[in-house]
């Protein structure tokens, strides 16, 4: 007679608490614990961030511009920013109808600046993501694998660090090696010229994390590289990456302004840099069209400043030594 098959132990049964015994630690439970812990530490970070006046001011200003950029298509009269359809008076100082005056095509400068935030911030954020992705991967790979990989990757990083970013950007922008459309090209150019600084920082942090005993222990337990990097190295390198990312945004926005001013920005697009360029080309300086070139510059300062303030607050959270004792 065949034996009755054993009932298949399902997961819930396995993990159901047995009287008097503590819950067995399963992968799910460990995962839940890890996430709970991350949420708690994020909550603590946020609480400390909130205390920083610098950080909150920065966050508010940045938030304002992000909202501005996102709502721009809906709040701006698009006819007022296209040369063909703009119907304002030419090069007129601010009036009630045109709070920031008009430009050489009769376009509403305020609308231009608001709409320009879209492209400027888009380029700023996207280029930053690109630079961080490249920089972090290079940095972690170099620091983690060490040896020859490190030598090669560090050499590449150093080469990019040494090259003056703007001439490299000009070369890449004019040659357009990947035949990208203007917008994509400028994002790529900024990413390529900015990743090296991050890579260096991330590599240093990876090296210090690698030395820590829990990494050694995990390795002794037989963890593979992927596991070690994603579970141990990455979470401890992320704080440095975050703080650096924030600063990168400012650099990317300033880079876009510079490149657009030189005429390398995306063609036929409204960005803060192109407004600066057009105002300069049309004699805003000698003729004194201050309403035309001041606002975009101020907008750039505000965004870059807000980002640095946030970065400062973040740095103080992640680097307790810098905090006031």
């Amino acid at each position, binding site marked *: 007679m065949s034996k009755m098959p054993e009932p298949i132990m399902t997961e819930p049964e396995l993990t159901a608490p047995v009287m008097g015994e503590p819950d067995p630690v399963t992968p799910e439970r460990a995962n839940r614990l890890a996430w709970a812990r991350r949420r708690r530490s994020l909550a603590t970070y946020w609480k400390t961030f909130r205390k920083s006046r610098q950080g909150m001011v920065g966050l508010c200003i940045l938030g304002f511009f992000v909202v501005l950029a996102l709502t721009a298509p809906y709040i701006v009269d698009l006819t007022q920013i296209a040369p063909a359809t703009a119907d304002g008076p030419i090069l007129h100082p601010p009036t009630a109808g045109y709070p920031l005056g008009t430009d050489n095509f009769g376009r509403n400068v305020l609308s231009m600046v608001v709409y320009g935030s879209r492209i400027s911030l888009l380029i700023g954020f996207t280029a930053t993501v690109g630079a961080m992705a490249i920089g972090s991967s290079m940095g972690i790979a170099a620091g983690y694998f060490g040896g020859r990989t490190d030598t090669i990757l560090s050499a590449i990083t150093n080469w990019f660090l040494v090259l003056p970013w703007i001439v490299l950007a000009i070369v890449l922008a004019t040659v357009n090696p990947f035949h990208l459309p203007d917008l994509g090209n400028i994002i790529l150019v900024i990413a390529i010229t900015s990743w090296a600084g991050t890579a260096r920082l991330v590599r240093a942090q990876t090296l210090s994390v690698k030395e820590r005993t829990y990494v050694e222990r995990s390795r002794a337990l037989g963890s593979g590289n992927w596991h070690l990097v994603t579970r141990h190295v990455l979470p401890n390198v992320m704080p440095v990456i975050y703080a650096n990312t924030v600063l990168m945004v400012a650099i990317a926005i300033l880079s876009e302004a510079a490149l657009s001013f030189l005429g390398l920005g995306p063609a036929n697009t409204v960005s803060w840099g192109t407004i600066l360029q057009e105002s300069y080309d049309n004699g805003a300086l000698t003729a004194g069209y201050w309403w035309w070139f001041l606002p975009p510059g101020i907008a750039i300062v505000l965004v*870059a400043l807000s980002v640095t303030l946030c970065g400062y607050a973040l740095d103080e959270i992640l680097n307790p030594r810098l905090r006031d004792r």
Partner: protein
Amino acid sequence: MGARRYFFKKTMYALLTLLFVLSFNFVMFRVLPSDPIANLTRSQKLTRDDVAELRHSLGLDQPLPQQFVTYVKETFSLNLGRSILSGRSVWGEIKAALPATIALLSLGTLFATLLGIWVGIKGGWKRGSTFDTSSLFTSQVFWSMSEAWLGMVLIVVFGSILGWFPTGQWQTPGDATQIQRLADWGNHLFLPVLTLTLGYFGEYAIIMRSSLIEVKNDDFVLTARAKGVPDREVRKKHAVPNAFLPTFTLIFLSFGFVLGGAILIEVVFSWPGIGQLEFEAINNLDYPMIQGIFLLSSAAVIFFNLVADLLYSYMDPRIRES
């Protein structure tokens, strides 16, 4: 390792970096474009024979590796091609534009460094003081500005409105004595140099400040105080020399950024330097010029980094003698 080996190693590394730059340039301008000749001869009406001759003289009919060798040789002999825009040699044009840029860059970097370090030390030593908070904020504000915009603002305020300074160019045309000429130069230099100084002092100040704050907590500073050394001397002889080392490195590393700012400023002020050359090259897609400036500015930065490395090893006895 001895000083000599250190020097050798660093120089080799610099040369290797230069080689990388050359290769990169080669790839960008010779390998990638489908027809390099087209880039070089745009907007010029040339017969097929002319094109063929050009192709031959540039060595474009040779296999790539040989092209590269020729390219390197020509670069080192400063044969950087001819500008499409002016027809003159690239190196010639650059040489003519160098003095203006060197004047701007050296004075600007000098003042930015001096101001930045002074602000950073004073603020960092008395952290939280009124000077510290206000100077930190000021540094951050200036760092957040686009150099082009800052230049524009200064021109309008001091040039157009107040009329204190000229709004562009390097000199006023016409006859003048030596002294008048020098004064004229100074007059024209003032605003561009001011723009460069204001644009970059903030970064140096912030770096110096955090460096000093860290060093201030080191044990040997406590030892100095315990010995009865007055506060000013503790700062001058113990804290600053140690805080200055990492600042020094970072200052040199930022030279590439200062160069970028200088280019923007030259455009804004119609300054007859390399930046202006580059601007015109961009507007006219003058590839030989773009290449040439890329090469030379990279080489300059590499050179300065090498100098910085060697100077650093001299300043830090731990490296000097290890």
